[in-house]
């Protein structure tokens, strides 16, 4: 498994192995799950309180299903770690961050300088998402 390269939260990392969405409900002692692109993130909503780590796999950077999965979990109140794993490229992490990801375990390590620049790139945002940033329309109208 790729290493966590970037973690934007201060709690203790969960080291438990992530299980599949299908098996998570039955494995009552598990607290980490891994979402694949075809999985329905909403299947996890009944067991959210048990979850401490959700890994969302991006087998190919062109497949954006994990972005919706992440937002759905955050919208349902999930506050644990949300980790993007797989083919995670530096030019995507700003958008991933906005969808609620707060840790990144890319297959190929990101250039730290590029990653920092990417996360600081956008002065504002146009739309509400899963992060706390106020959209431009809110700044315009208070």
């Amino acid at each position, binding site marked *: 498994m790729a290493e966590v390269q970037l973690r934007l939260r201060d709690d203790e990392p969960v080291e438990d192995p992530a299980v599949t969405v299908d098996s998570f409900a039955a494995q009552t002692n598990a607290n980490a799950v891994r979402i694949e*692109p075809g999985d329905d993130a909403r299947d996890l909503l009944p067991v959210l309180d048990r979850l401490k780590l959700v890994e969302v796999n991006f087998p190919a*950077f*062109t*497949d*954006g*299903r994990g*972005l*919706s*999965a992440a*937002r759905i979990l955050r*919208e349902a109140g999930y506050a644990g770690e949300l980790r993007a794993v797989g083919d995670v*490229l530096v*030019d*995507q992490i*700003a*958008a*991933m*961050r*906005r*969808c609620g990801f707060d840790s990144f375990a890319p297959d190929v390590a990101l*250039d730290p300088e*590029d990653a920092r*620049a990417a996360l600081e*790139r*956008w*002065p*504002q*945002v*146009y*739309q*509400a*998402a899963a992060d706390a940033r106020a*959209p*431009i*329309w809110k*700044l*315009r*109208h208070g």
Partner: protein
Amino acid sequence: MYRYDPYDTAMVAARVAEFRDQTRRRLEGHLSEEQFRPLRLMNGLYLQLHAYMLRVAVPYGTLNSTQLRKLADIAERYDRGYGHFTTRQNIQYNWIRLEEAPDILAELASVEMHAIQTSGNCIRNISADQYAGAAGDELVDPRPYAELLRQWSSFHPEFTALPRKFKIAVIAAETDRAAMRLHDIGIRIVRNPAGELGCAVYVGGGMGRTPMIAPLIREFVPLDQIVTYCEACLRVYNRHGRRDNKFKARIKILVHELGAAEYTAQVEAEFAHLLTLGIEPPRAELERIKAHFPEPALDAGGEDGDPDRGDPDFALWLDTNTAPHKVKGHAIATISLKPVGGIPGDASAEQMRVIAELARRYSQDELRVTHAQNIVLPHVRKADLAAIWQALDAAGLGTANLDGIGDIIACPGLDYCSLANARSIPVAQRISEALSPRSAEIGELKLKISGCINACGHHHAGHIGILGVDRKGVENYQLLLGGSEGADCSLGQITGPGFDEDGIVAAVEKATALYLSRREAGERFLDTYRRIGMAPFKEALYG
């Protein structure tokens, strides 16, 4: 028209800086082409046959003269002196150097323009009725709604890696001039029985390999929920759209496979959920944007009579290329970018400057790009039409052929496009030369040519459509009849075996001749085709 505030300026500047950085990383070898490709596409930069091609967004087709002058300057400084206006109301440059692309984006930003999301699997530039704000048959100006959606869709974090590209059109008139139902989402601004404005939403239209007319999935979305509703439509698509086959990845396939009712049910469930999150900009934001689109400051008290029709060429242009304006004494004038035998949609830097100056002097400093690859001066005094036409004519822009046989839509085809199977432009040029002399007699006839199945030339929606195919390495052309993009939206049917280049020109001549011999009073080509059906045309073509 909409003007950037400091927030918009900062966002576009950040995008330019981002792309400059990405280009640097590509040139220094930190990004592979595979990784760079989606990034450059999100900034409208393609690799085409002869060079890089840059597609610049013209949001909902609206430009001012300063912007068009900048587009002319870019054509001269960074390209080869011309640009190509596209069927999505954008402009493309064909000879761009990668190393200069970030500078071009910076030049565009200086006049509040960009190339954001003009390609790639994301929400593309939003198109609208080219007569918006000027047409008598519209409920309201649709552009503020398009601008609201433009901002919402710009850098939308959840929708940056959709299964496929995603196109939205907004109209507010009875007559659909934007081929709204051939978009992934088509929005028509309507009034409900209580008199409130809202949106009728159509989802799942498109052209390409599997053309479909979008079904209505909701009759009325209140205006202050439209962003949320679009977000729901997109989320269902992002999660469930097909990713196993590029040719089945558009939302039209999802809607078709699920069925409109099931897709709608899923959207409604998502919509109900999203409504609880407060993601909709407040009414005040819509009002702020609307204030940028005031009623044009036109004097309704002037003469309403037609200008002097003494010059027959001018009179013809007046009849074909101008449309009624909602304000008395004014007209909407369309500048044809289809000179007889010319390249559809191309304009030289010099011509762009002429058009910009006319817009500044005579049209409230406003211009529109149409999906038929022409340019509109939306607000002109009838009294100025003669002077406008003279200036256009002197610049080779005075062709009187709007919606006629010479007003051909043609995609770049194999002369420029790396996906093409056959050339489109030479076919358009030959048909234009052969049939333009009879244009007045033929009347309205919309002819559309695509160089491959991707259908950028909208061939499915042409009264006559032509599709270029590759037959064992030789260019071949299929003929379609009976398509239409408007309120009477329909998809063209293939006549039969394809033709070579000479053959397709002859086939169009035959089809037109049959129409002329069989038409009844007042019938357009399309009407005659619909009345008599395909059989007589087949007989004329292959019998």
